[in-house]
């Protein structure tokens, strides 16, 4: 199997699907001629032409609104938002139009599109190039939200997302765009949406995370093991609808849970995870579920490494939870 990084895996997925299905269209700021600021769409315009890979004006509302129309027509648009921080000008289109059209039309229309956007910090991007807005979309009925942590999942989940009949927010953790490398099946390959992956089995504490924080979590789990705490690490992969069965199975075993994400804590996805676990595994809980997350502040440039929930913070929470 070829080794790829995340960027290559996503590019490979787009290339594969654009070849297989001529309804797939890529659009966004600088995705064509320039190949995207992170080179994710590199070469696609040369390979598929200007009618399949569209450079658009710099307006996210226009990008998503236009993609909505393409999807209604029957295409499979894959718009890119250059940084997830800039998805908010398109928020009304996503919340009021994309998410609702199937429902409001009585099922007459669907809006199968995949909005790709790099998320997360740790690359000196600063205040407006580092945020993780997934919870803003989980709370919106009608959307699916995906966030891969490995090149293999990036390809498999992206292909599954494009083939899904519902709109998907596909968040790509940019900190590991190149740092994460691994085997990626060539050709057709999908990873079913809605299934978490047990990345590390363990008995003592369940550690639930996704995206770039998977690696911090694994580092913390290794450190915890050295202290005699055996963590089970779950990579959610699909953030909504998330795999509550996998969480329940793990917590039934461990009775303890720590959730890790980069986004601010309050009303973040971690809150929903904790609340859901309360609903499905309350009697098994032996310690209060902990959240190790970005702080409830805007994203800071100079102090980003303090802001991110890195392994020492996770480790501390793991040990406290294990010893509760």
């Amino acid at each position: 199997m070829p080794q790829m990084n995340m960027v290559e895996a996503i590019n490979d997925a787009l290339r594969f699907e654009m070849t297989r299905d001529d309804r797939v269209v890529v659009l966004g700021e600088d995705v064509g001629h320039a190949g995207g600021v992170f080179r994710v769409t590199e070469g696609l315009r040369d390979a598929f032409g200007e009618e399949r890979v569209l450079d658009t004006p710099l307006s996210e509302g226009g990008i998503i609104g236009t993609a909505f129309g393409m999807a209604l027509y029957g295409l499979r648009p894959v718009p890119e938002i250059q940084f997830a921080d800039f998805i908010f000008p398109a928020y009304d289109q996503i919340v009021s139009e994309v998410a609702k059209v199937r429902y409001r039309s009585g099922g007459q229309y669907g809006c199968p599109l995949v909005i790709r956007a790099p998320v997360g910090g740790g690359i000196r991007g600063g205040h407006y190039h580092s945020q993780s807005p997934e919870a803003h979309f989980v709370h919106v009925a009608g959307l699916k939200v995906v966030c891969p942590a490995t090149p293999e999942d990036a390809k498999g989940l992206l292909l599954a997302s494009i083939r899904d009949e519902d709109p998907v927010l596909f968040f790509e953790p940019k900190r590991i765009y190149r740092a994460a490398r691994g085997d990626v099946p060539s050709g057709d390959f999908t990873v079913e949406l809605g299934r978490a992956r047990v990345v590390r089995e363990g008995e003592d504490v369940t550690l639930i995370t996704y995206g770039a924080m998977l690696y911090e979590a694994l580092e913390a789990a290794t450190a915890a093991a050295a202290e005699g705490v055996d963590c089970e690490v779950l990579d959610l992969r699909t953030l909504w609808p998330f795999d509550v069965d996998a969480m329940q199975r793990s917590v039934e075993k461990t009775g303890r849970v720590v959730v890790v994400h980069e986004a601010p804590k309050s009303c973040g996805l971690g809150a929903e995870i904790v609340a859901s676990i309360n609903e499905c595994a309350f009697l098994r809980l032996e310690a209060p579920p902990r959240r190790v997350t970005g702080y409830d502040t805007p994203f800071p440039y100079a102090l980003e490494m303090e802001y991110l929930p890195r392994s020492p913070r996770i480790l501390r929470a793991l040990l406290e939870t294990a010893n509760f």
Partner: protein
Amino acid sequence: MSMPTEPRTSAEALGLNDDGCFSVLGSDGVVVGDTPESEEPSAGGADVDMYVAMRRLRACDARAAALRAEGRIGPYAGAAGEEATLVASAMALGPEDWIFPGRRDHGLTLVRDVDGGAVARFFHHLFATGGDPAKGRPGLGGTTARGARIASAGGPAAGHLCHAVGFAWAARARGEDVVTLASGRGAGVTAGASFHDALNFAGVLRAPVVFVGRYEAGPDRPRKGEDDATSSSVPAATVASGRVGRFPSARARGEAYGVPGIRCDGMDPLAVYRVVRDAVRRARRGEGASWVEAVVHPLDGVRGAALDPLVRLRRYLVARGRWDDEAERALEARTQGQIDAAVSEAGSAPGPARATLFEDVYRALPPFLVAQRDAVP
């Protein structure tokens, strides 16, 4: 047909003013302006159909307003006086063309009456029954009629304009000869930021799309600091409620995006038909988008009453021997019969089943929604 030297009424004044506001019919139903009689005034022979559709819309609208007054349906925003724009713009399209309706464009479904069921569906929508094509979910204005090639209206005033652009572009990219019309009403259409996106993207993508906005010509009350922006010769798209905005010419609005703009008398079906049909032809030729402003007046005002599109088109048809009192009575009877039947059917039809609450959020019902559904007491 020669160009009259003097405007005869305020409608004619509109038709000839230097803002490019275009009209064909005078308030007396006589053709004015520079229209060659050969083909244009008859709207390609569809003028009788247009009249029939306008009558149907007027009658449905009146019944809906009455039902609202009785409290039998929820909020209803009427279309009286706007029939010309709704009907003529839809009929200027070919059957393969698509319409993206706005929040106030429910009347459009009554025009594209593909299988004769449109009147019934209209009232099922208003009563939000199980027979509502939208399953009772949006409430008024959530127009959707896939079978009639009508997309799904949302809530935000201008949100759908970009959708039409993407749809139009997609159809062209797939080699289909389809023109897409985006309809809307009110100052929100142009004030909304989506207007900017839609015209910008339409210009850049050279999408075969026609935007048609209906504007109520306001009280022409000059507002502080705006006296230069509105003048009595320029029908100002301001509103009785005091909503504000600058009102450049339609041409100026479009020019910023490389999209030609034109303003027409929105209560003149033949004017709307011609303007929209030209824009549709332009789009079909691959020349891109157009922006059409159709000026309407409240029918219960002095100006609006004088410009009633039904009166004008009827006079025009009668003068040409294509309509008479008998035809009118027959149409009236038929239409009222349809409406009575539809209201009695929809008015007593059950609402959507409770389980439908959870359907169509996604294509398939995910387990967490199954759980929510099954937990309903």
